[in-house]
Every structure is written in structure tokens, then in C-alpha cells.
């Protein structure tokens, strides 16, 4: 008999028996005083969490891989599911439920209620993703919850990694959560984080397909609990959930096995509650911020799916990775017309807001012009010029993966495009020069100071454009 089992049996003096076993779920009898969410331990050493209690039986979620049989004894532990939190998690690759041998460590329940409004503050600090298009068109703020949605293999994870690298370089704590992924995918991401030397301020939480479904279900809650620990220390934290559609599917699997009444698309009725409770824990607090990037898969660019619309309703906006844009060769294939940010604009500087507004207006005009261009319409000089300008803007947004473009440089480059400084330049030459400027920004501190100086100096975009036009040699 397992030592822990015997210990808890003597302590709680209650016993139950396994009646029925499903993958990930067990029905049991006995344990008269057990309560929902309590951890139970099996005679063979496996752990489980009580999911529901009825008059005749208990529903127990299995937290460890097992080969349980009917008649196995179970006992209570009198505890709820908690994880140890502390600085020791930094640099670690963890499973959703982990233990530590460290002593004097704080334990926190993973499924806690979000903090109330009195603890919160307005989102008013910009969050730089390092992706020019997002920073200029769909800007984010620290403490924002943003959905990244798109078809499979359109670069959503690449974007989130870019965001992670950018946030790391800005001094934040990053937590990447992989939910229900294959072992290869987990290994690839783990290697990536190590190669980029970001693990000292990063935590990777992963659950693979071979883990019990309950573990994958708990992975985002664990990530959020760790994020809350660092937030309470006044730090800025980024949590990435990759991805919540898989999370919903795993929850559906468990709920259907538990004979829960199926709702739309067979998802249980409380899936909205589960996701909103999770994402509500992110936000800007009086002390520290938790920015959440939730990734969701769409099918054939359909944004009207059940989970997708739920997540859109819960988050403060979404960035749409369009499969058609991907096929057109745009990288990242973000559709600016269908992407939304609800609180990002209020976090921008005055100059950035002005630039964003100018760009957004121009993109709409450019879209109309390109649609007309399909009909072979002859354009007047102004319209033809706008089309050429639009091409340059698109080329500017075509960013190599994992290259971080600082916000100030993005604004400066856009000002140079808007000031027609690249008029007549070939797109390939233009793109090449942009890459050189990005490199220069990182290598040459004088250039960096110059760029940051001119950006901090102006509040109006037109003023910036005028200055860049006047001193083009200095900046581009």
C-alpha cells in the first residue's frame, strides 16, 4: 500500500472504493465527508480531484496517469489543489501540477476567483509586441487580454514568440503555456526559449497529449497562478495560452465522459465561465500587470465558431491571422481590417495615437483603391501615388519572423514613408534598407538615441514627418 495513502487514511479515517473507471475520470463510492475540489489519493498512489459529489457516487478527475481497477481504495487528503510558487519557477519547464523540495515556499490554489475592481487600474502603459503592424494598427496595453486568432499554421505561435522576446527585452516576466501539444512541439519551443537565452525570466508550462486530460485542462490555471505571484510582487507579466481552442476541446472530452449535458457543438454549458474566469484574472493592477495573449484556432478563417466568439467576447480585442493574406505572402498575415483592440489606444503616447489614426485612415483608402484596381480602372495621379505608398506600407509590414522592431523605429519608418522619402524606390531596396536600419538601431547606440529623441520630442505626427523630411540623412 502506498505510504501517502496510509498516512492520509489514518489522518482522515475515511475510505472510498472505485466503482467505474473511464480515461481521465473515475466514479467512486464512500468518503462520506469529502467535498468538491478536494484532492483524493488512491491506494496505488495516483492522485485525483473530486469534481462533483452526488448522493450515490463521487466523480473524480484523475491527475496522474493510471491503470486503476474497480475496487481500488481511495482516501481523502483534506486539501485542495495547490501549487508551490516562488522565484524558483523561473527558468523551469514545468508540468501543470508540480512539486518542489524547496522549503518555506508559498502555496496557492490554482483555481481562484479573479481580483475585484478595487485592486485594478486603467490600462495606460503601452505593450510593445515588436511587430510593426500590431504596434501601429492594433496597439496593445500592459494588462490587456488579446486574442490571437487564425487558421492553423498561419504564424500565430511565431507572433506570440516575437511578443515574448520583445516583452523579455523590455524587462518583463514571461510565461508560455502549451496545452495539449505533441512532444515534438513542446521540445521545439523549449529549445527555442533556451537558444534565445530568455529562460532566466521565463516559465514554460506544457501538457502533452499523452498526459491525463485533467492536466491539460489545468495548465492555463497554473500559468495564471504563477503570473499572479509575480504580479503581486509588482512585476509586469506576459502569459501566453497556446491554445484555448484545444483547452476547450479537452474540457469537452472530460465533460462528455462525465455525462454532462452537451450544449452548442457538444461543449458543456460552462465553457464560457471557465474561460472568462481564467482571462479575468489578467489585467492592470495597482501593483503589477498581467497581459494575456490567448491563441485560438479557426477553421477556414471562420470567426463565428462557438469558442472563437466566446473568446472574442471575453478578451479586449483580437488579432486576426488571415489565411488569404498568408497565401498572398504577407508576413505576418494579420488582417488589419478585422483586427480589434479595445483598450490599446488609450495606452499609446499621443504621437503613436496620431500615427495610428493616420495609418488606419490610409489603410481603408488603400483597400478601396486596390479593390477598384482589380477592375482595371485608370487612376488620377493622387490615387496612383497612394497605391504606390500602400505597397510601401505593406512592404514595411512584411516583417521577418522573430525580428523585433522597436515601437519608436516603427513610427519613424512610417513617418519617412508618409513623408514620401522612399518615393520611386524599388520595394526590394526599400525592404533591404529597413532591415539595415533595424540592425543599426540595435548595434549603434547613437542612432538609437537619435531615433528615441526625435520620437519623444514630438506629439503630433505631422510635426514628426516634417522633421524627418527635413533631416532625412540623419534618420534613414
Amino acid at each position, binding site marked *: 500500500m502506498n505510504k501517502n495513502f496510509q498516512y492520509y487514511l489514518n489522518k482522515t479515517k475515511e475510505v472510498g472504493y472505485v466503482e467505474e473507471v473511464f480515461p481521465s475520470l473515475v466514479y467512486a463510492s*464512500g468518503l462520506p465527508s469529502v467535498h468538491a475540489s478536494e484532492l483524493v489519493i488512491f491506494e496505488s498512489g495516483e492522485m485525483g480531484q473530486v469534481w462533483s459529489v452526488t448522493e450515490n457516487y463521487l466523480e473524480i478527475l484523475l491527475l496522474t496517469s493510471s491503470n486503476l481497477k474497480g475496487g481500488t481504495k481511495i482516501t481523502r487528503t483534506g486539501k485542495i489543489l495547490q501549487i508551490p510558487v516562488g522565484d524558483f519557477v523561473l527558468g523551469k519547464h514545468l508540468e501543470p501540477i508540480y512539486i518542489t523540495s524547496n522549503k518555506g515556499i508559498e502555496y496557492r490554489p490554482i483555481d481562484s476567483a479573479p481580483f475585484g475592481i478595487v485592486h485594478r487600474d486603467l490600462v495606460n502603459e503601452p505593450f510593445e509586441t515588436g511587430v510593426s503592424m500590431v504596434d501601429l494598427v492594433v496597439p496593445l496595453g500592459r494588462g490587456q487580454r488579446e486574442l490571437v486568432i487564425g487558421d492553423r499554421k498561419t504564424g500565430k505561435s511565431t507572433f506570440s514568440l516575437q511578443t515574448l522576446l520583445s516583452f523579455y527585452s523590455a524587462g518583463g516576466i514571461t510565461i508560455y503555456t502549451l496545452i495539449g501539444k505533441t512532444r515534438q512541439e513542446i521540445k521545439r519551443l523549449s529549445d527555442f526559449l533556451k537558444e534565445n537565452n530568455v529562460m532566466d525570466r521565463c516559465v514554460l508550462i506544457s501538457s502533452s497529449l499523452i498526459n491525463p486530460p485533467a492536466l491539460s485542462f489545468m495548465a492555463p490555471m497554473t500559468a495564471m497562478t504563477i503570473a499572479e505571484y509575480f504580479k503581486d510582487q509588482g512585476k509586469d507579466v506576459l502569459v501566453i495560452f497556446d491554445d484555448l481552442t484545444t483547452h476547450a476541446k479537452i474540457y469537452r472530452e472530460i465533460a462528455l465522459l462525465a455525462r454532462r449535458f452537451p450544449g452548442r457543438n457538444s461543449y458543456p454549458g460552462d465553457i464560457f465561465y471557465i474561460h472568462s474566469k481564467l482571462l479575468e484574472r489578467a489585467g492592470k493592477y495597482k501593483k503589477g500587470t498581467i497581459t494575456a495573449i490567448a491563441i485560438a484556432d479557426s477553421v477556414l478563417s471562420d470567426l463565428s465558431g462557438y469558442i472563437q466568439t466566446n473568446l472574442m467576447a471575453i478578451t479586449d480585442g483580437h488579432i486576426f491571422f488571415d489565411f488569404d493574406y498568408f497565401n498572398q505572402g504577407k508576413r505576418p498575415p494579420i488582417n488589419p481590417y478585422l483586427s480589434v483592440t479595445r483598450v490599446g489606444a488609450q495606452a499609446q503616447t499621443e504621437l503613436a495615437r496620431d500615427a495610428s489614426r493616420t495609418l488606419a485612415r490610409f489603410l481603408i483608402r488603400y483597400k478601396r483603391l486596390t479593390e477598384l484596381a482589380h477592375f482595371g480602372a485608370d487612376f488620377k495621379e493622387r490615387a496612383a501615388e497612394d497605391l504606390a505608398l500602400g505597397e510601401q506600407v505593406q512592404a514595411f509590414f512584411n516583417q521577418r519572423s522573430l525580428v523585433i522592431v522597436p515601437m519608436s523605429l516603427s513610427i519613424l519608418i512610417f513617418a519617412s514613408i508618409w513623408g514620401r522619402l522612399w518615393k520611386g524606390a524599388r520595394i526590394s531596396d526599400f525592404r533591404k534598407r529597413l532591415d539595415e536600419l533595424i540592425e543599426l538601431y540595435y548595434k549603434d547606440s547613437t542612432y538609437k538615441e537619435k531615433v528615441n529623441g526625435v520620437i519623444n520630442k514630438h506629439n503630433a505626427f505631422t510635426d514628426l514627418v516634417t522633421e524627418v523630411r527635413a533631416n532625412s540623412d540623419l534618420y534613414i
Partner: protein
Amino acid sequence: MHLRAMNYSAMNEKISDIISTTDEQAMALKEIDLLINSLYSTEGGDFEKVLSGSVRNVLTQFVKKDKDYLVNLKEEINKLEVFHITLAYEPSSEGINRILTWIRKNVNPNIILDVTHDPSVVAGLTVTFRGKYIDLSINNSLSGTFKDKYVDIMNTIIKHE
């Protein structure tokens, strides 16, 4: 319905007389299953054949050639409450009967025993009933004593060395 309920209640007391342990319960359920299956046989006389060949004599007095009756009988047998005990030795059937008689008299007349043999109990027993667990074994009291008086015991051992 009232008469039927009365019948089961009266029958239940007798059923519990012939079933003392979970092993006997499982055996009785298996025999009733065989009888139910024989009712569906296309060849005549199967029920009687099973009754005479595969069912113990003690059970035959409770059996009728009626499917609903047999199904209800199974349910009644399943309703018998299990009282789990773990002993350090394997008790004789006489020993089991003595324990069972005491429990039925003092706890509930519809109880059957599930006896497990575990030498680590040393002496005494552990009891599990309605989800509650009580350890009345010598192993438990010795462990407790050893834990509480560890230093005294070790000192005594060292002194005698």
C-alpha cells in the same frame, strides 16, 4: 405493490441468513444470472437443469421461475451492506460467523463481511464501514507509541547495549 414489498422484506432477512461474505454474495449473483439466462433458452427444461446442476441448495429455496422476481432478488442481494475488516490471520468460517453475528446484532441485520488478510496488522483489526475507517490494530498503536516515545525507546536500547 404493498404485498410485494412485504415479501421482499421478509425474504431479505432470510437471504442475509445464507449470505455472510462478499464472496458468497458474488457467488449468489452469478447463480441468479445463470438462472435468468436460462429463461431465454429456446430448449425446454433449461431452467430446471441449471437449478439442479449449478445452483447451491441453500439458494434454491429462494428461487422462482419468474424473470422479474429473479431480477428483484439480485437487487436485494446487492443492497446488503458490506462491512470490511482486515485481520492479521485468516479466520475460520466459525470465526467469521461469530464476528458477523455480533455485528448484525449491534449494527445492522443486513450486513455482510468482506474479510481481508494482512499480516502487517499484527493483531486486532481495521474496520471500514459506510466510508469510515477505524484502525484498531496493534500495528497502529505500536507505530503511535514508537513515534511518541522514540527518544525514550532509543535511550533504553542504547543503555542495554
